[in-house]
C-alpha cells in the first residue's frame, strides 16, 4: 500500500494571502468587509443546539446579537440520533420551552414520532421523547434564527478571543473581521482541535466532511482557560428500504396530541414507526474477533467517551455475560430513507461495521449508507465556570454545550439558553440568572457541571435530581414560566395561559377537597370493584384520590352533578397534574420542607475574593479545592468532591462570624443580631 505523506495540520491558516494596497484595493477590486469591525452586545460562537438557544435568548432579550458559525448551511445539525427527549432529557427540553427557549417548539415543527415514556411508572420519571426529521429540524431552526430582527448570522471561523485586563471584548475572525461585544458565548461543540477516527485511521474534521476549528484553542489557553480531551461516537446509518421489518418489533408513537411545547396547538401528525431488534451471539463474535482494530484498543483515541452511550465494543468488554443488547432502528426523517441504529455505536473499521449490521436480525440484507465514527475534541473542564456559566478567568466570557463536557442536544440547549440569558444580562449590567437544584433540571445540570466537574461526557438522568418529584415534565411551566416572563422571554399572553392552567388545577382541587363522598352501597361497591376498602365514614373526594388504587376518573360517578361537570370540562393535562399532586402529596410536602431547611445554608453566598487559607479548621484538601474552584455559594462548596460536611460546618461558622462582624461594623449601635444571615 502506498502511504502518501500529507500536511493536514495546515488546513487552516490565518495569514494574509495578498495584502491590500493603501486604497484598500486588491487586484483592482475593492476589498470590502475585511479587517472591519462590527459591534454587538453579545456574540455567540457556534451554530449548534447550544449556540442557537444562546443567540435567540440574547436577541429576544433585546441585545444586538451575532451568531458566528463555521458553516451557515449546517445550523442546528443533528449529527447523532435525531431524537429529542427521553427520561431526564425530556424534562430539560420542557424546561427550555417553559423559559422561552426554542428546542421544544422546533421539535414540534419537525417530529415524525412522539411518545410518553414510563407511563406505568411514577410521575418523576415520565418524559416525552420525539424522533425528529433531521433536515427539517435544521431548516425550521434556520427560519427562526433568520427572522429575528436583532440577530445577525455570520459565517466564519473564530480565530482569537479579544481579551484585555481579564475582560472579553469580542472575537477576531480568521478572515480578518472583528465582532466586538462586551459578552461572548462559546458553544463550539466538538469542533475544537477535532479529529475523526474509524479503526486505526483518523483525520482532522469537526463533523464528517467538515473542517475543524484549529485556531481557537490556542487563544483560549492564552486567556487562562484549561482544555482537555473527550471523545464521542455515532453509529452507522443504513438504507431503510433494505431492512426486514417482519423480523423486528415495530414501535409506534402515542396517539393523541402530544407536543413538547407548552405554547400553541399540538400538531396533528401521522407518525413513522421505529423497530426494535437485538444483537446476537454472531454479532458478538464479529465484534470480539475484530476488537484489536477498535480505536479503543489501538490507542488512536485518547479522550474519555460517554459511559451511558457506550459503543458496542465497549458494551461487550464491560458486560461479557450478556448474550444480547437491544438495537433500535429509527427513521432519520420524512425527507430520507436513512435509518439510525441506536445501540450499535462503533468506530470499528467499515467492513466490520457491515458484518455487525448483517449479523443482526432484520438487518441481514441492510445496506450501509454512513459508517459510524468517533470524534475526539477539546472540552473545557466546567469547574472553570460560575453558576451563570461565565468563565472565572475572563469576565464576560460564557461557555455552553458539548464544549463544557456534556453530551446530548438537550443538555447543550439548556446550557445555551442559560449562557445566552446570562450573557444578555451581563451586557445589560444586570445581575446573573441562575436556577437552583430544587427549581429545575437545568439547575441540577449546571450545578453538577461547575461544582463537581466531569470525568466523562455528562448526561442528564432523573437520578441526578434529589427533588425529582417536584421537577416533573408536567409542571415545568409553573416552575419556570414566571421567571422566563421576568426575563422577557415569555410574553404576557403565554404567562396568562400558565396562570389559567394553574388556577383551574387549584380550583378543581379545592372543589374535590370540599366535596364529601358518603359511605353508601353505591360507593362501597365501586371502591370494592377497584380493589379498595369501603368508606367507614364520609370522606372528601380529595382524600379518596390519594389512595393509590383509586383514580379520579374512576370515582367521577360518585361526585355530585356540579363538581362532576367541572371535572369533565377540565383539560386532560390539568387532571393529570392534579392526580399526581394528590397522589404524591405527602412526598412532595416532605421534599418542600427539606428544600426550605436546606435553602438557608445552600444559598449563603461566599464573598469573592475569599481567602480559604485563613480559615482555621479546614482540611488541607478542602482548602486546596475550594481555593481552586472558588464556589459561589456554600451549597456549591458542599458538593465539591473532597470537601466534607465537617469542612462545611467550619466554613459556615466562619461565614456567619464574618457576616456578623461586617454588620456590627455597619451599625455600631447594634440591634442587627436577629437579621437573617442568608442572602436568599
Amino acid at each position: 500500500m502506498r502511504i502518501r505523506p500529507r500536511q493536514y495540520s495546515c488546513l487552516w491558516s490565518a495569514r494574509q494571502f495578498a495584502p491590500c494596497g493603501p486604497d484598500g484595493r486588491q487586484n483592482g477590486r475593492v476589498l470590502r468587509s475585511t479587517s472591519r469591525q462590527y459591534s454587538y452586545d453579545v456574540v455567540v460562537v457556534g451554530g449548534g443546539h447550544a449556540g442557537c438557544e444562546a443567540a435567540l435568548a440574547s436577541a429576544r432579550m433585546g441585545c444586538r446579537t451575532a451568531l458566528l458559525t463555521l458553516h451557515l448551511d449546517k445550523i442546528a445539525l443533528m449529527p447523532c440520533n435525531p431524537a429529542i427527549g427521553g427520561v431526564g432529557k425530556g424534562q430539560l427540553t420542557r424546561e427550555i420551552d417553559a423559559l422561552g427557549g426554542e428546542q421544544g417548539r422546533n421539535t414540534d415543527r419537525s417530529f415524525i414520532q412522539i411518545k410518553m415514556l414510563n407511563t406505568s411508572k411514577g410521575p418523576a420519571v415520565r418524559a416525552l421523547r420525539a424522533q425528529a426529521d433531521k433536515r427539517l429540524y435544521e431548516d425550521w431552526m434556520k427560519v427562526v434564527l433568520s427572522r429575528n430582527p436583532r440577530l445577525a448570522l455570520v459565517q466564519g471561523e473564530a480565530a482569537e478571543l479579544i481579551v484585555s485586563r481579564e475582560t472579553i471584548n469580542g472575537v477576531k475572525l480568521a478572515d480578518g473581521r472583528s465582532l466586538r461585544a462586551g459578552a461572548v458565548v462559546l458553544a463550539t461543540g466538538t469542533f475544537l482541535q477535532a479529529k475523526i477516527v474509524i479503526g486505526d485511521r483518523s483525520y482532522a474534521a469537526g463533523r464528517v466532511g467538515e473542517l475543524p476549528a484549529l485556531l481557537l484553542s490556542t487563544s483560549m489557553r492564552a486567556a487562562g482557560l484549561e482544555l482537555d480531551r473527550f471523545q464521542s461516537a455515532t453509529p452507522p446509518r443504513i438504507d431503510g428500504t433494505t431492512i426486514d421489518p417482519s423480523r423486528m418489533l415495530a414501535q409506534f408513537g402515542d396517539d393523541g396530541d402530544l407536543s413538547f411545547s407548552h405554547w400553541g396547538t399540538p400538531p396533528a401528525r401521522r407518525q413513522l414507526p421505529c423497530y426494535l431488534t437485538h444483537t446476537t451471539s454472531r454479532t458478538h463474535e464479529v465484534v470480539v474477533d475484530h476488537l484489536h482494530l477498535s480505536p479503543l484498543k489501538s490507542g488512536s483515541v485518547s479522550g474519555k467517551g460517554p459511559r451511558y452511550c457506550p459503543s458496542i465494543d465497549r458494551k461487550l468488554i464491560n458486560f461479557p455475560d450478556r448474550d444480547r443488547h437491544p438495537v433500535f432502528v429509527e427513521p432519520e426523517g420524512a425527507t430520507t430513507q436513512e435509518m439510525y441504529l441506536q445501540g450499535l455505536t462503533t468506530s470499528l473499521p467499515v467492513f466490520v461495521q457491515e458484518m455487525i449490521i448483517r449479523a443482526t436480525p432484520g438487518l441481514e440484507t441492510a445496506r450501509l449508507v454512513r459508517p459510524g465514527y468517533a470524534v475526539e475534541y477539546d472540552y473545557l473542564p466546567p469547574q472553570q465556570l460560575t453558576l451563570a456559566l461565565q468563565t472565572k478567568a475572563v469576565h464576560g466570557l460564557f461557555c455552553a454545550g458539548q464544549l463544557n463536557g456534556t453530551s446530548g442536544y438537550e443538555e447543550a440547549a439548556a446550557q445555551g439558553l442559560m449562557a445566552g440569558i446570562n450573557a444578555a444580562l451581563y451586557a445589560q449590567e444586570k445581575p446573573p440568572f441562575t436556577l437552583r437544584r430544587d427549581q429545575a433540571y437545568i439547575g441540577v445540570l449546571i450545578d453538577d457541571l461547575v461544582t463537581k466537574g466531569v470525568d466523562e461526557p455528562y448526561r442528564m438522568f432523573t437520578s441526578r435530581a434529589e427533588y425529582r418529584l417536584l421537577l416533573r415534565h408536567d409542571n415545568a411551566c409553573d416552575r419556570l414560566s414566571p421567571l422566563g416572563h421576568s426575563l422577557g422571554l415569555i410574553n404576557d399572553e403565554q404567562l396568562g395561559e400558565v396562570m389559567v392552567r394553574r388556577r383551574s388545577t387549584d380550583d378543581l382541587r379545592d372543589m374535590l377537597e370540599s366535596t364529601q363522598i358518603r359511605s353508601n352501597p353505591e360507593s362501597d361497591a365501586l371502591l370494592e370493584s377497584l380493589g379498595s376498602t369501603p368508606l367507614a365514614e364520609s370522606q372528601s373526594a380529595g382524600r379518596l384520590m390519594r389512595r393509590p388504587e383509586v383514580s379520579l376518573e374512576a370515582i367521577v360517578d360518585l361526585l355530585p352533578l356540579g363538581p362532576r361537570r367541572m371535572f369533565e370540562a377540565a383539560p386532560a393535562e390539568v387532571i393529570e397534574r392534579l392526580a399526581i399532586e394528590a397522589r404524591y402529596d405527602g412526598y412532595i410536602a416532605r421534599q418542600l420542607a427539606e428544600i426550605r431547611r436546606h435553602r438557608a445554608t445552600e444559598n449563603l453566598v461566599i464573598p469573592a475574593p475569599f481567602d480559604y487559607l485563613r480559615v482555621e479548621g479546614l482540611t488541607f484538601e478542602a482548602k486546596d479545592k475550594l481555593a481552586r474552584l472558588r464556589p459561589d455559594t456554600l451549597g456549591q462548596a458542599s458538593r465539591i468532591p473532597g470537601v466534607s460536611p465537617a469542612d462545611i460546618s467550619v466554613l459556615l461558622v466562619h461565614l456567619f462570624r464574618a457576616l456578623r462582624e461586617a454588620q456590627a461594623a455597619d451599625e455600631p449601635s447594634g440591634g442587627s443580631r436577629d437579621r437573617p444571615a442568608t442572602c436568599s
Partner: protein
Amino acid sequence: MVGRGQAGPERAPGSTTTDVIVVGAGVSGCACAAALAAGGAEVILMGSALDATGLPGHGPAVTAASGQWEEIEEVLRSLPAILRRVWVEAASVPESGAPMLIVDRRAVSVETKRALEQLHSLHFRQGLVEDVRVVRGPTGEFQSVEVETIFGEVLSARRVVLAVGLALGGHVRVGAQEMEGGRYGELPATGLRAALETAGAILTPVEEEVGERYGGNSPVVAQAFSSAAHTRTNSGLVPVRRLLESAIDLAGGASSLSPAAQVALRLAASVADSLERTECRWPDGLPPPPHRTKESDVLAALLTDPARDPRSPQAAGARESVTVLDKSPVQAAALLLPDGIATDEYWSPTAISGPTCSYNSMMVRPLAVADNSGPEMTSGAGAPVGSLDVASRLRHKVDGLVLGSLDSGHRVPQFGCALWAVGRVSGAKGYLDSLRSGVDCAQRLLRLLEDDSDHGV
C-alpha cells in the same frame, strides 16, 4: 495530523463490483447518478458529507451560457423526470424576463436526496475518497476500478465518475483567511489529487469567485430594496411551485400572462407530464419543510411576540416585498437574489464590476455597503438593530484544479476507459453546464456498459 494504520485496505468479505461509482454528490454527481440509475445501472453515489447532497454550492442563480431560455429548458428536459421535478419545483422565474432561474438551494438539496433515494439501483455511501486505481488481471487486461476512502474502505466498480467540483487541490480564500477545500468549510480531496497526478493526468488550475450574502434582516438588503423602488428593472419572481399548486390549466397556457409567467408555465407543464410516474409528493400528514410552506405560514409557525418582532405576520406590512416569496424582487439596482425560504439570505453575484454592468440582460450596479469602519456604534436606545450590515457570508475565491484534455468531454485518458469526470472538475461552468455534463456522461456510460455486457466483459 493524519493517523494512518498499518493495516492494508479493507474490503468487506463478499463485496461485489457495482456498475458505476460516482464520487461526489453535488449537482453534477447527482444528475449523473440519477441518469445512470434511471437507465438501469447499479450506482453507488459517494459524498464526503451526505447532508450536503445535491446542494447548489454557489448561490441561487441558474443561467445559460447562451443567454437563451431555450437552453435552460432543454437541459431541464434532459434530466430524469424525478430530478427535473426537483429543480423545476424549487425555481422561480424573474418577471423581467431575464433568462435565469432562481432556485431555493436548500429545497434542491433536501428534495434531490429524497428523489434519488426513490431510485432502487442507486445507493448512497458517505466517505471521502482518497484514491482511485485500476485493477488489472494477470495479463494486464482491465478488470475493475477501485476507490478507497479516508477510512480505508475499498469499493469496486466497472466505471468510476469523478464529480468532485473544485476539491482537487482546492483552496478557499476568504478575506485574510486561506483554507483547503473545494467548497467553503468542506474537506479537500487531497489524496485523490495525488492519485491522479501519479497516473499522469493533466490538471489545470482555475479560479472561481463566489458572491457575498446578506441576511434578509440586514439593512443592506432593506436599503437595496427601498432604492430599487424607482428603477425600471426592479422585478418580482414567479415561483413555479405556485403554478403547480394552482388550478391553472398548465397545458392550455394563457396568452394574457406575462412572458415570464409563460416560461414558468412551460416549466411547470414539463414536470406535470411526469407527476404520475414519480413518487416525490410530500408524504401526507408528515411535517412539511419550510420550502413547501407559504411564507405567511412560515412566519405564523414562529409564534413570536407580535409586539417585539417586526417580522411577525401582524407587523409584516412594510417589509412584505422582502418576506413574501411571491413578490421577492430580483434586485436590479444592486442585484440581490433570494437564496431560499429557510435560509432567508440574499446573494449578490460575483460578476459585477465597474459602476454598472449587464448581468443576464439586466443592467445592474454593484451593491454599495455603507462603510462602518469608523467609530463603533453604541447600544443606545432607538437603535433597534445592531451591526446587521455584516455579510452573512463573505465574497470568496476558490482556486482548484480541473482535468484537462478529457476524451469526448468526460473520459480521463490515463485510466483507459475506467475513469470519467463530470461537472466542474471536467471544466463545466455553472449549474446548467454541470447538469448537462452529468446526464451526457451517464448516457455515454450506459451505452458503454451495454457494450461491455454484449461482449461478456
